[in-house]
Structures are given as structure tokens and as C-alpha cells.
């Protein structure tokens, strides 16, 4: 990319960030997260008890908010995009500017919402590993579901349908998929399921993020499992690195698909 298109991208990123900052949605998101975290720490009986609940909350809420905010902004920004495209602006820098302009503020809002109350309670020093893992999982989930949100928004032209599709994707990834995995585990209980289960987890970004958290919070239980593959996976740095790599792939591949769609789309 030339310098000019980079600067265009940065400029668009700046507009987008300012636009988002004005729209109360992100502030509300950060505030709601902060309130929930603060409540969990103060009324739930300390950080040790709050972290697991927070992890479940993050795994549920972050994908939902990222999806909804992304789809709605892409649709509401339709006129703005058309306006920009009538100027000599490349589609790649425009897309990247928009993408980062959404993913970065969303991620920042998430981190602020979770880390500020945890930091205030002193958890950053006492439970550094757990907090870092939850923060990392949430940040990566934000990136993944911003990418997926772009794919949905660019493929479904009707805003209502896009919203419906986003909700469906969220429900499937957060809840239904695990139900199917559980049923499969019972259906094929007689077979060695370790590797298939890990592959199934890799196919759902919400599960990958959850597994990343479980590695930090439930290592003792995971080590108690009979099979060697789980022990190797959950016991060391290898599993963690694989999970993070997996989430990165889940960010980049849909983002690339969305960019191709964006480049070909007739606005």
C-alpha cells in the first residue's frame, strides 16, 4: 500500500473512532462491563470468585456486542461509505480504516470496562495470570467477531436480516454449538474422542477463547484427565499458543473474506 492510501486509511480510522466515541453505544458497553465486573468483585466475594463468572460473561457478551455493533455501523454508515467512494479513495484503505476503526474502539472499551474495576480491586497483582488470560481472550474475541460482523453486514443487504443473522451466529457459536458437541460426545462415547473434541473446539472461536480461559483457571482439573493429548494440550505453553494462533486465524480469514466482498460490492 502506498503512503497515501495508508494515510487515507488512518484518516478514516480517525473519523470512525470519533464517530463511535460520539455514539454512546461504546461508552455504554464499557460502563456496563465495568459495572458488571465491579459488582462481581464486590458482591461476589473477591477476585478469586469473580474471575470465573467474569470469564463466562466475557465469552457470552463480547461476541454479541461486537457482532451487533459492527453490523449496525456498517449499515448505518452506508451513505457515508458511498460518499467516500465517490472520491478518489481506494477500497482497501477504506475497508481497513473502517475495520480497525471498529475493532480498536471495541477492544479498548472492553479492556477499559474489565481492567479498570479489576485494577481498582488490586486483582492485577494478585491474579495476574487469570486477569491477563481473560483480557486476552476478550480482546481476541472482539477482533474475531468484528471480522464476522463485517462478513454478515456485507453479505446481507437488508439491515433487519443482517441483525437477525448476527444474532443467529451468536446463538450458534455461544450456546448451540456446545450442545451439539455434548450430544456428539455421548453419541460416540465409545470412541477415543480427545483429538476430535479439540478439533471441534478449534472450529468455534467462542470455544477457543473459552478453552484459553479454562487453561488458566482450571489447569488442575484438566491435568486430572486420563488422556495424554489433553494433558499435553492443557498442561503447557503449546496449547495456549495454539489457541491464540487459532483465534488469530479466526480474525484474519473472515476479515480477508469481508475485504474481498467489500472490494467487489456494488454500493
Amino acid at each position, binding site marked *: 500500500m502506498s503512503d497515501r492510501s495508508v494515510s487515507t486509511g488512518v484518516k478514516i480510522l480517525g473519523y470512525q473512532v470519533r464517530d463511535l466515541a460520539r455514539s454512546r453505544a461504546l461508552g455504554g458497553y464499557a460502563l456496563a462491563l465495568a459495572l458488571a465486573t465491579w459488582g462481581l468483585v464486590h458482591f461476589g*466475594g473477591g477476585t*478469586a*470468585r469473580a474471575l*470465573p463468572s467474569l*470469564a*463466562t460473561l466475557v*465469552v*457470552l457478551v463480547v461476541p454479541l456486542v461486537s457482532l451487533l455493533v459492527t453490523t449496525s455501523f456498517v449499515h448505518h454508515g452506508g451513505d457515508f461509505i458511498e460518499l467516500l467512494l465517490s472520491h478518489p479513495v481506494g477500497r482497501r484503505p477504506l475497508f481497513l480504516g473502517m475495520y480497525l476503526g471498529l475493532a480498536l474502539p471495541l477492544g479498548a472499551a472492553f479492556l477499559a470496562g474489565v481492567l479498570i474495576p479489576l485494577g481498582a480491586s488490586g486483582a492485577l497483582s494478585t491474579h495476574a495470570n487469570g486477569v491477563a488470560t481473560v483480557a486476552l481472550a476478550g480482546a481476541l474475541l472482539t477482533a474475531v467477531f468484528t471480522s464476522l460482523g463485517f462478513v454478515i453486514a456485507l453479505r446481507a443487504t437488508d439491515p433487519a436480516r443482517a441483525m437477525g443473522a448476527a444474532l443467529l451466529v451468536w446463538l450458534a457459536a*455461544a*450456546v448451540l454449538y*456446545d*450442545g451439539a*458437541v*455434548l450430544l456428539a*460426545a*455421548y453419541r460416540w*462415547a465409545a470412541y477415543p*474422542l*480427545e483429538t476430535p*473434541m*479439540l478439533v471441534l*473446539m478449534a472450529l468455534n472461536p467462542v*470455544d477457543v477463547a*473459552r*478453552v484459553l*480461559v*479454562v487453561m488458566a*483457571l*482450571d*489447569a*488442575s*482439573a*484438566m*491435568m*486430572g*484427565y*486420563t*488422556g495424554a493429548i*489433553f*494433558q499435553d494440550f492443557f*498442561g503447557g505453553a503449546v496449547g495456549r499458543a495454539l489457541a491464540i494462533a487459532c483465534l488469530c486465524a479466526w480474525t484474519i480469514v473472515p476479515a480477508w473474506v469481508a475485504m474481498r466482498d467489500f472490494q467487489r460490492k456494488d454500493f
Partner: protein
Amino acid sequence: MRAVLILLAALQGTQAAPASQGTVATRVVGPGGDHATITEAVQAAQPHDTVVVTRGVYREATVVVDKPLVLRGEDGTVLDGEGARGLLRIVADSVTVSGFTLRDTGISFTEDRAALLVDRAHFCTVRDLRVEDAFFGIYLANSGDCLLEDNTLRARSTRETRSGNGIHLWYSTRVTLRGNRIEGHRDGIYFEFVEDSRVLDNESVGNVRYGLHFMFSDGCDYVRNVFADNGAGVAVMYTSDVLMEENDFRGSLGNAAFGLLLKDITDSEILGNRFRDNSVGIHAEGANRVRVAGNDFLENGWAVKIMANSEGSTIEGNNFLGNSFDVATNSRRSYSDFAGNYWDRYRGWDRDADGVGDVPFHPVRLFSLVVAQNEPALVLQRSPLVALLDLAEQVLPLLTPEDLADPRPRLAPVSTRWGPS
């Protein structure tokens, strides 16, 4: 007390012999001493003499101590087995050994080769030994009334079959182990057919199999010991009348690793211990009339696994904090009582403000039953779906053991010697 009286009686009995009357001598072994080898000194000594071994490395055949003696090594006195033999064998009563470094016995597959073997002897004292790279470290067979104190045993075993136990007691009674540190052996401390013994303030760390392993050893106490990072934790079996108090069980990770494995243990007490970072805190199989009280269960995979063949045990006044699963069992019925524990998962109210929750707590989650039946499902830990299933089961219990419940869950942790968690 009784042991001391017997000890005094025995001492007086032997001292009545005319040969040793008033002639307690000190013999010095080493270059410039009275004797060149320890064996020579022991052979020349009269009962109740003191043999002092000056610093240096001694390579001689296994020293057999066959009369009551005080055997003392100066700082830096090393007995080297050259990978071929045990170093000291005590076959007489009232022997005291202290201050030596015993090293390199080598491995034997035909005998239980030990750095120090006490064979059919009573009233021995073993103190301040350093035992390095021994097959078995200190081995008592058919002995009793002994004190093993402040010894350090270190081996570098990696495989169960090629290593022996650190402190090994077989058919022995009234032995006290105090302040010893055992590392890198097969079992740190091993008791078989031992009675009325005390294990106090020892550290058994990083052993290949169990930190503590006992069988058929009634009436023994285990107090303030540390059992950490052992291959499979601590296993105790086929024993009654055990007291385990204020021990620290931690870092037993693995599919067959337990902070504490109870197998056929009856009429025993497990009080004020801490179980931390173990795959399973306590695994109880056939634990009958065992009282588990005032313990801390922190961040274990499973805090307590209690099998249905455990009857009449009580689990009361313990703290359960940050465990992946609190309680697992293999039955819909419960034959043990849970009462007055603190559970961090408890979400009930306390409207009469008496510190006890208004509704019972059911510590067995549906998901722990699922995992028991279908282990790979463990990857779904903390899934929202699992939370939903657990919630549904709480509202309408169909599968989880209904009578395995804590009717009086506490709202604040019990205070223990381990302090606020």
C-alpha cells in the same frame, strides 16, 4: 513418655554389665585418630562408647553396628557406597547415629539396599544425616522406639522401578519422624505394618510416586508436614485410627494423582489441612467414619471425590474456594454427611443473619456427572451451555444426588491456620 521410660530401663539394664561400668570412652576414627576405619572402631568399642569420625571420605564395607554406641560424624564426614553397597547397618538397641553424609548406594534389584538399615533394633536415634543418591534412604525393619530427626534425603530418581523409598518403615512401632526433608525418592515416607508412630514437621517434596504412602499402619499421627509436587500425591490405605492435622497437600497433578487418596481408612480424622492445586484434593474410597473438618480446599480440579462405599463420614466446617468441581461421587445416594462448610459457589440468602444460608447447597453439579460418564466433555467446562444445564438441574434435580447436600452452608469462610484465603 512410656517410650522414654522403656529407654531408660533398657539403658540401665545394659549398663549393669560389669565390663562397661564407668568406662565410657570416646574413640576417634580418621587420619591421626585411634582407628583407620569405622568398622575397626566399632569392633574395638565397648558398649556405650562414643565413636567420633573425623571429616573425610570413607570407603569401606557396610559398617555393622552390633552394640549400643554413639556414632557421630563431624561436619564433612562422608560414607561413600561407591554404587555398590549400603553404608550402615544397625542391629543392636540404643544406637545413636548423627552428622554423617551417606551417599551413593547404587541400585539393587535383589535386596532393599538402604543407606542406613535398622534391623530388629530398638531405641535408635538418627539425626542430622544427609543421605544422597541412595536407593532406600533410612530403612527400619522390625524395629521400634526410634527417633529420626532433621535428616535430609535427596535422590534423583525419575522412574518408579529404579528407585527406593526415602524413609521406609516395615513392621515397626513407636517411631517418631520429625523435621526430615525427603526429595526425589520413589515414596518419600513409606509405612507398612507400622503402629503408634508420629510424623511431624517433615517435608516430602518432588518424589516420583507418593509423598507419603502407608498401609496397615494403625494409630499413627501426621502433623504439620508438607507434601508437595509428588508424582501422585499421598496415598493411605487399609488403616484405622489415623490423625492427619495441619498438613499441606499441594501440586499433585495428573490423572492418577491425588492430594490425599483414602482407601479403606476407618475411624480417622483429617483436620485443618490445606489442599491446594491438586487434580483431586481428597479421593475417598471406603472411607468409613472419617471426620474431615476445618480443611481448606483451594483451586483443586476436584476438591473431594467421595465414592458410595464410604459410609458414615462427615465433611464439616471446611472451606471450598476456587475449585473446578467441589464434590463428585458415583451414586445418587449419599452415605456421608456434609454440614457447615463454606462453598464459594453458594448463592443463597441469609435472611435471619445467623451466618448460615437459608437453603441447602448441593455441591455435586450436573456437569461433574456428565464428565464422570464422558470424560472428553471436560473441554466444555465453563461453557454457557453447561451453566444452563447446571441451573436447570438445580431448579429441578433429576440426576444429581439429592441427599448429598450441605443443609447448613456457611456464608463466610471458616478461619483456619492457613489464614484468610
